[in-house]
Structure formats: structure tokens, C-alpha cells
């Protein structure tokens, strides 16, 4: 399973996906979101939607000094929170800014490709691609 942006041109910037992602923890707000929606240089130009592409050889895991980010078979990483010292190197290593940060805990929040956000996108911007091999899709 892999989260993907199906058609960014349909995004209205409602951020329902961001609130959904954060709500997985059970609480409200945005502290735990690991999907991002921002304008592309002003709202009139449309939006940029940032999702983890679950890289096969993830740069975020490569730079982690404590082994807190574990590459997964088929792509992406899992965070072992107890190992994480909150140095933020992973955040800098991700050039699409898909490593999000929980300021309250000072730790990264990493997409687990669960697809909960997809259910809350009213405009079919997002999709969850089913792929046993977890191959990257554009």
C-alpha cells in the first residue's frame, strides 16, 4: 500500500487530510499530521500536497544517527520512537519535506501509508495504491 497524490489540481486547500492524519491519535488539532497542504506561492496558483513517497532507499533513514528510522521492505520507514533523540537530521534529509515534526514531543512523525487521509479528501486528490511489492508510483 502506498499513499499517492492522484490529482493535485483538484485540491481546494481544505486541509481535511491533515486534520484526519492528526486525528489518528484520537485528539484534535494538527500536531501529529504527516501530510502537508500549502499554497503554491499564493492560493490563486493552487496547492502543493506533500506525502511521503516511501522511498526504497530512504534518505531519512540513511542519516539517522541512532537507527530510529528503520527502512521497510518495499519502501518507506518506521519510527522506533524510543531510539529517536530528536536531532532533526531526517527532516533535513527529506527534500520534499515529507518528514513532519511533532513540536510537542520533538520527534518526527512519519507516514505509515495507512490511507486514513484518503477517506477524508472530498475531491479525490489522494489515493492509496494497492501494490503487493510496494513499488513506487508517480
Amino acid at each position, binding site marked *: 500500500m502506498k499513499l499517492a497524490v492522484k490529482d493535485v489540481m483538484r485540491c*481546494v*486547500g*481544505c*486541509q*481535511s487530510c491533515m*486534520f484526519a492524519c*492528526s*486525528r489518528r*491519535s*484520537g*485528539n*484534535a*488539532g*494538527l*500536531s*501529529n*499530521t504527516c501530510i*502537508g*497542504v*500549502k*499554497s503554491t*506561492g*499564493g*492560493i*490563486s496558483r*493552487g496547492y502543493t500536497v506533500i506525502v511521503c513517497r516511501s522511498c526504497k532507499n530512504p534518505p531519512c533513514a540513511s542519516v539517522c544517527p541512532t537507527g530510529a528510522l528503520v527502512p521497510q521492505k518495499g519502501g518507506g520507514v518506521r519510527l522506533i520512537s524510543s531510539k529517536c533523540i530528536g536531532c532533526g537530521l531526517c527532516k533535513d534529509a527529506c527534500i520534499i519535506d515529507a518528514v513532519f515534526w511533532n*513540536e*510537542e514531543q520533538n520527534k518526527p512523525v512519519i507516514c505509515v501509508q495507512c490511507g486514513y487521509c484518503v477517506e*477524508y479528501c*472530498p*475531491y479525490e486528490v489522494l489515493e492509496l495504491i494497492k501494490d503487493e511489492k510496494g513499488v513506487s508510483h508517480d
Partner: protein
Amino acid sequence: MRKELAMIENDTLSRVLYIDLSKKRYFVKDRKDLFEKYLGGTGVATQLLLEECPEGIDAFAKESPIIFAVGPLTGAFPLASKTCAMFKSPHTGDLGESHAGGRSAIAIRMAGYGAIVIKGKSELPIYLSISNGKVLFKNATTLWGMKDGSIAARVMRQSEGGEGLRAIFRIGQAGENMATFANVTTETYRHFGRLGLGAIFGSKMLKGIVISGKQMIEVTNKKEYRALYDQIYKAATESPLMQKYHDVGTAINIKSLNSAKALPVKNLQMSSTEDIGPVTGEEIAKHHLARRVACAHCPVACIHLAYLREAYDDDPYFYKTIPVCYDFELIYSLGTMIGITEPKALLKLIDIVEQVGVDAMSMGVILAWITEMFEKNMITKEDLNGISISWGNVEGYIELVRNISKPITVFLKACAHGVDYASKIYGGKEFAMQFGKNEMPGYHTGPAGYLGFLLGARHSHLDNGGYSIDQKELIKIDLSPEQVVNKLLDEEAIRQILSSIAVCFFARGIYELKLVSEAIKLLGFDLNENELHEIGKQIHLNKYKFKMREGFRIEKLEVPERIYETTDPTGKITKKFIKEGLDYAQNLIN
């Protein structure tokens, strides 16, 4: 006795950020006392205004406060995306209240505040950058005086962090020059539109605010929270209640109000026009709609952006494409009210109004009044700084908008104070379309609408059910003025609650008081429907307390004769009806 409410201990909603622009200092105070009693938004902002605004003060004095407040549902449930702004209105001299969406509410709540109080006055232009518990006072000298307010916003956007999580408030040239109906724009297309917040910003040399954050909000029961969230989300995305806003948008009302003879045309000399075709919501959508966007945490996406493509005169293959936001009120005020029914002309004028940063309804009504004054030879071309105007002439109106925002002649300076102020000096009161000194919205629906504008706490059509009483009831049956006033006041109580929790009024069909009660319970507020209704009434009375304190009197209200002369759908707009309604309300409220 009301029971004690208990907010969730860690909820940052009750944190109020106080900023002093004179001393460039700030502090945070916990105000559970206010939030537990009045929920947030309008309810809390009213109390803060009563506390912070000295009686009888000049709206432009440095002690005059700017208050922003959000509510318990902000950041927790969809459609709770409104920020309530309160201030002493420089336009009416009493209560100034204006609501805006965009990312404003989410950003304030996520930054860890329930309300912000701004006082004092800076000696140089500044903007505020609020994030991570800090307030930075940034030099905005270079942004001051720009003719297009969106450029200032672009500079702030490029200099500040928090992309995707921030709101950017800013004023335009009209605010800097303290036109009393100048607005504050947020996220380019949303506005604290009515009653002159932009002028207060200008008087304090405050060009803008950038605020961001992304914190957690705890709920009392995670499982119930998710279930209720899904219920509301489903209603917002699937129910027909939101369809109207979602598809064609509020502009869909242009066609129906025009055929019902309820749409002001040419300063309400008429209430419909045969030329409406090209500027109906449907037609504009068909030919010009380019994109729909949403406020943060609202899946409805009611904001409609048209793209205006214009050629440059000096180069046949050189075009500019300008995104312009339109809705019902803009098509009315900058369209039919001044005889413009050509969509490109309308969009051009809207763009200029956005650039200078004024309330579109007030500006449209002022332009309409000026046109009639000019037609009747009550003013001269010299008064208009040499500008030629006539109904439907967009180039003249564009010049006039720029001139009113930066007025040179004595007449245009008066116009920058609104149509009530100007008509008291120059005459033409009988067709100066103001109610309680605020220019009218586009609803000539019947007597309930007008009583609503006159008695509503902030003189905007959406703040009272007046236009709806006209269209649903008075058009078919007879109601006494007393019955209408009772209905208006009853509905006001509900709308005070909606703007206190603070949800968008477009969602009023979803957020019935029962649902409100269930939703706020998850944030720690234990109040049933009746208790909420009582709090709503109290908030409305508190607003009246401020209004009366600042000199508002029902008996002093002046009604332009024009409304009695122009056909309306009910045929019931009579002096007798309005007077009886006002007299009855006066006895109730005093």
C-alpha cells in the same frame, strides 16, 4: 444559577494574547473565566471589548482595542473556521464586529491562543509575526503605501515561516488612510470586511499579522470524538444543506432574487434588471470560474475564483491573467447596484476593490449614491476630482474607488467615511442606502430583512434571519411587526452561539443547538440546548450593552425613503411596519 463549566485543563483556548503596539510588548493571560461562561468567538470577544475599550473613546485612539477570538470547536471539527474580530467601529461609532475564515481561525488556535487583544499605536509601520509562543514586531515601513495590498501580503509570505499553517492578515491603502469601511484581508480572498477593522489597523500603523502553529487539542472521549467528527464531515460533504455553497456558490441567489424583485439595482431605484443574464452565478461559473478553494478545515470549498484575462493595449500578444474572487454580495454591490451587468467589467472592479482593501458592500453602495447625487446635480465633477461617472461605466468607478481610498477633494474625503456621513453633509439621505450607518447588503426582500439590518447586532444580512423570514414566510402569510421582531431576536440568540463556538453561518443547517451541545461536550463544555440558547441571548444583550454605551439608540435610527418606493417581493415594506417593529424592539431591549 448556571452550573460551572469546566474546560479541559490543558486546552490553550483560554489563553489570551495581549499585545501593546506602543511599548512593543506582549503577555499571555489565562481567561478561563470568560471562555467557560461565553464559549469563545463572539461571546468572549464582546466581554473583552467591554473590558478593554474605554467608554466613549475615539475609535482611532491608541487605547481602542482590536480583538480576535476563536472558539472551542476551532481545529477540532469541520466548518469551525471563523475568527470573530471585535472593535469599536470607526464607521458607525458603536459595535464593530466582523468575521473571516481563510486560515485565520485555525492558525490562531493552533498557535495556542483563544483570543488576541491588540492595543496601543506604533510610531512606525509594523507587522506582527506570531509563532512558537513569541510575538515579533517587524518593520513594515517598506510595505506602507503600496497600491496593491496583495503585494504586501506576498512579501510577508516570502519572509515568514509556517507555510500551510499560517494566516496572513493585511490592510491596503484604504486602511492606511483610515477610510472608515476599510477591511482586513486574510489569505488573499477572505475578509474581516464590514465596519472598518482595516481603518483601526491603519490608525495603529499595523500593516498586517502573520500567525502560525500546529498544536494538539485534547478531547474528552477519543472514540466519541471520531464518531461525531464523521457525522459532521458526512453532513458537510454529502447533505444537500451545503450543496448551494459548494456548487455555484452564494452567487446562485442572483438569479432568484432578481426574478423575485429583491435585488437592488442602480441604488435600489429598481429591484430587478432584464440585463442580469451574464452576471448570474451560473453564467459567471460557466465562462469565468477557474478554481474553487476552501477555508482551512472546511471541505465545502465555497470560495469561487474567476480568472480575468485582459490584453494590454500596446502589445497584441501580451496578456495579464488576474484571479478574482466573486460571490453574491460582490455581484450585487459592485455589479447590479451600480448598473454593471457585464462580467469582465465586474471582475475588474472587484479586483481594484481588493487591491485598495475596502468592504465591497459599503463601497458599492457609496458608488451608487454618488452616481445618483451626480445625476441629480447635487454634486459636481470637481467634487469627484474630475472623474466622469455614470451607471455601468466601470472605468469611472475604478478611478473613483482609487480616489475614495486616497481622497483629495472634500467630497471624496466625506465619502471615505461612508454614505451616512456624506449624505448628512451633502443631502440625498432619502437614497443613501444605510442602516444604522452601515451600507446595505443585497437583500430587498421585505420588512423583516430591513428590521434585521436595523436591529441586528452587527448589521449584516447573515447575522439575522430577516431575509429568510421575508422569503419563507412574509411572502406567503401575514406576520405582525412584533412577531417578526420576536423571530429575529430568537434567531439572533442562536447565531450568537454559532459565532461563539465559532462555526461558519453557512453551516447553520448542520450545527443545530443539539449538535453544538454534543460537540462542545467533547471539549469539556457541558451545556444543553436550552442553556446554550440562554447564553446566546445573554451575548446578544452584552453586545447591545456596548452599543448603547457608545450612543446607539433605536429611536435615532434613520431609514432611507427609497426602501418604501421600490417594489419588493412581499409588498409589505411600509413605514408603519418598520416603525412598529422598531418601537416594539425598543421596549424589549431598553
